[in-house]
């Protein structure tokens, strides 16, 4: 398949599909980063607090570059994308919206499932036909690799430590897994993206994701519920109430004065 050197070479249908993909990636990253940042000052040990906060910042940085690319595609600037949209305009999966509830087991499990999914997608995107997007994926992949290394260490240790921690991790997996399946909700644009060799079909990515996470979960002594059903709706703007609350807090200053500089 021929490579697409620049966004100007995209036909309208493909362009719409790429915009949809970038909103999904960017919104997941920003909301995940925001949720993870809520652990600052609260993580189990000081070193982890610093590491977790740093990765939350990485995630927000990823959102910024996705939004920057959207801006190049004719969408509003990154600040307007982040602060100027109502919940129903967001395309993040429910997984990242769910509040932390100071539940470390859930948040570590969520981050593991999320980073694994991101890495599978970024790995596929590094070889995609849209050159600027492939370059971006190559740039972000290294950092994601580290995030996943971090998550894997926590998941396997908490899973193997004592019965209480294993039980909590299993509960966390049972709660997070159906939500994480929602990361691969098809939006109808994935067929276009697959045909243009830009991004594989969501169903195919999900299979790859499952084969990536199962060895780690098995090592941790944890099991996926084979009957789990994906929580859908995020990609089309149907979100848990919690996203509205998160955005109210994140967009507070912008809503008072969109031109404020801080």
């Amino acid at each position, binding site marked *: 398949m021929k490579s697409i050197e620049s966004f100007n070479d995209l036909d309208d249908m493909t362009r719409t599909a790429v915009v949809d993909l970038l909103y999904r990636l960017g919104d997941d990253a920003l909301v995940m980063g925001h949720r993870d940042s809520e652990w600052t000052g609260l993580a189990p*040990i*000081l*070193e*982890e607090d*610093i*590491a977790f906060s*740093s*990765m939350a910042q990485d995630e927000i940085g990823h959102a910024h570059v996705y939004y920057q690319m959207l801006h190049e595609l004719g969408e509003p600037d990154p600040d307007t994308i982040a602060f100027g949209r109502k919940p129903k305009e967001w395309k993040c999966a429910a997984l990242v919206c769910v509040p932390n509830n100071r539940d470390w087991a859930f948040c570590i499990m969520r981050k593991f499932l999320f980073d694994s999914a991101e890495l599978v997608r970024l790995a596929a995107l590094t070889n995609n036909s849209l050159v600027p997007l492939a370059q971006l994926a190559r740039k972000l992949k290294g950092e994601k690799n*580290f995030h996943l*290394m*971090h998550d894997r*260490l926590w998941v396997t*240790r908490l899973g193997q430590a004592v019965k209480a921690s294993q039980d909590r991790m299993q509960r966390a997996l049972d709660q997070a897994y159906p939500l994480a399946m929602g990361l691969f909700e098809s939006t109808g644009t994935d067929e276009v993206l697959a045909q243009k060799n830009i991004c594989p079909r969501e169903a195919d990515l999900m299979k790859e994701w499952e084969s990536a996470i199962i060895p780690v979960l098995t090592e941790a002594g944890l099991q996926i519920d084979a009957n789990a059903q994906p929580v859908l709706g995020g990609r089309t703007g149907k979100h848990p109430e919690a996203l509205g609350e998160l955005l109210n807090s994140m967009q507070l200053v912008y809503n008072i004065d969109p031109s404020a500089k801080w």
Partner: protein
Amino acid sequence: MTDSQLPVYEVFHQQARGEPHVYVGSVHAPDPEMALMLAKEQYARRQACVNLWVVPIEAITASDYEDDALFEHATDKSYRESWGYKTPKTTHRTDQESPAE
């Protein structure tokens, strides 16, 4: 003072290949792999880094500050110091610290 936290690992940071690993601080971690991961975020986040070492603090045998006599020079030994000799910078790092000629 006893440390009630996780075991301590000392962290050594290498800025570029061929440079020495420099002691930068420590992390608390349950095992070496976790120590390495946490050290990366504490000590290699901002400055350039190509390699990190983590060493369990128990693995280090240190001299005692009370034994300062160990390091005292009883006689003038300056004739033994290498900065008096011209050497290529690339092979002798101590040369960089020699007084200006």
